[in-house]
């Protein structure tokens, strides 16, 4: 029996709150639901989720479905799949969204398989045809060299959403919504993969995927020590430092910091590319960033074709004053905008 849910979002609680990506999906999901004047629902798995549920409603969902069980505290595919599959079959939503996150990546394909529906991974934009209710799902392919627009031929239309590509809804505590509890009985026999341990890698800066600001150095940096200036800027902006392939090949930076086709794929709010030529291999990892700033000696460098703002010159001469000025601004918070 359908609960006439139009859009169902699989949320991710992190430390007693909604993940940024979940909030973004709520924003995007709301729009879809409204266009189809239907209901937006959020599905959360974990333990002790009342507060998160309230937050979700404040971010604009109509219903929250909670699967609460200590066993669900940490993600485990086999358990999560059982519960989500059951819930989705039960709600029969038209649209099912989840994040392009470690969980989403792991879960979505198998869920789609079991639901017998299609799936569009890593979407950067959804457009809805309000009459048919069909969503045109746009996703980068061929390492961001091309965009593909797809539609799902079955229901629910399923997509995973790249973090940072949807606009989060405003928090509004006055919003109303219903919280429903889901049965959480788990068939242990289906659990084959066991999580033995979880290791958080301590990086002094923010992880590349979550960073809102990324400062990236390229071949033109010349040496590993020259990256320290980028670290400084990143710290100042509360961002992370990345690198294109040459610095990693040359051993100036660890390969875990590599952004590009064979490294991390990121889409921060601000991407500052320093002495990066902008090869296709690199741009595959950052082309979807909201704003790209390029600093490069060579005006011909491809990076300028992809950047929003650029300075032609030697980073050694440009970064120090840039950092100084940025610090002023951040401290005075615009006190000196008029200069």
């Amino acid at each position, binding site marked *: 029996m359908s609960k006439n849910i139009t859009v169902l979002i699989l949320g991710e609680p992190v430390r007693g709150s909604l993940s940024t990506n979940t909030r973004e999906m709520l924003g995007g999901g709301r729009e879809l639901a409204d266009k189809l004047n239907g209901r937006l629902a959020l599905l959360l798995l974990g333990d002790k989720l009342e507060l998160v549920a309230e937050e979700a409603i404040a971010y604009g969902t109509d219903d929250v479905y909670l699967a609460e069980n200590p066993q669900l505290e940490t993600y485990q595919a086999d358990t999560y799949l059982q519960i989500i599959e059951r819930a989705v079959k039960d709600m029969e939503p038209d649209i099912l969204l989840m994040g392009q996150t*470690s969980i989403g990546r792991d879960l979505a394909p198998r869920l789609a*398989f079991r639901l017998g529906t*299609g799936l569009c991974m890593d979407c950067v934009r959804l457009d809805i045809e309000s009459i048919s209710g069909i969503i045109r799902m746009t996703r980068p392919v*061929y390492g961001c060299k*091309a965009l593909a627009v797809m539609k799902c031929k079955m229901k629910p239309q399923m997509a995973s959403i790249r973090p940072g590509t949807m606009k989060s809804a405003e928090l509004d505590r006055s919003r109303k919504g219903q919280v429903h509890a889901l049965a959480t009985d788990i068939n242990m026999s289906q659990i084959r993969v066991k999580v*033995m341990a979880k290791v958080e890698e301590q990086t002094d800066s923010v992880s590349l995927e979550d960073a809102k600001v990324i400062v990236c150095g390229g071949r033109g940096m010349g040496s590993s020590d020259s990256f320290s200036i980028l670290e400084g800027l990143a710290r100042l902006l509360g961002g992370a430092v990345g690198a294109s392939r040459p610095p990693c090949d040359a051993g100036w930076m660890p390969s875990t910091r590599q952004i590009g086709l064979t490294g991390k794929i990121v889409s921060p709010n601000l991407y500052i590319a320093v002495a990066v030529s902008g090869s296709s291999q690199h741009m595959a990892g950052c082309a979807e960033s909201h704003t790209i700033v390029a600093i490069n000696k060579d005006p011909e460098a491809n990076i*300028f074709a992809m950047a929003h703002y650029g300075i032609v010159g030697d980073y050694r001469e440009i970064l120090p004053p840039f950092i100084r*000025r940025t610090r002023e601004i951040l401290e005075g918070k615009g006190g000196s905008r008029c200069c």
Partner: protein
Amino acid sequence: MQIVVCIKQVLDPEMPYSAFKIDPDGKRAIPPQGTPPVISPYDENALEAALRVKDAHGATVIALSLGDRLACSVLRKSLAAGVDDLILIEDPATGGLDSFASASILAAAIRKIGGADVVFTGRQAADWDAGIAGCAIAEELKMPCITVARKVSVQNGMVRVERLLSDGFEVVEAPLPCVITVDSDIGELRPVTIQGLMSAKKKLVKSWKLFDLKLESPPPPRCELLELYIPKHKRVCEIISGENAEDAAVKLANRLFEESLL
């Protein structure tokens, strides 16, 4: 132990922009002259993962590739690297399949060769970047699936895998048989030698059609491709200049602040 690695032939993801062209009507990328296709990079990592297991415990490693007009000299690299057998599923009908359809064909092939203790695939293919096939193969074969592996070890009927997470990794264990999708962190495919390539050239490569897998036609696609296009970077880069480097730098900072990007 029998290990299967699914390797996909893709257009070289590192081809220069100027080489990348699309046939909008055919909704497909046009293979460029002068840039050979390659084994999808993550699939090369998958090959390496498999070969390491072979090194440690001894195993037959079979590489499996699906597609239309496959380039032997490209895929033979897997043999040169130490794979024991290369099987191609070449069929005109396999053009433009979706991940689920490909998965079911690959699964059928794996059944035909008598199953596998471990199936390795790349975390995603460098052309469509979906990252679905691996998981779908697992579902088809009713096997457990571990994605985005950065380290794999097999001992007494179990695999122990380090799964990459955004903020670190987790260690998971699963019984064999299972499917593992591999990340680049696991390491590059070992370098192949010219001798390796030469002997690979002599090896017989099996080639199957759908018919050989007792499939009349591939399963219908679950998604439909509506459009494929190269985004026009209408982006006109705003070049910030000034009397000197410092001046320009300051202007840039201000500009970013105005756009509330700081």
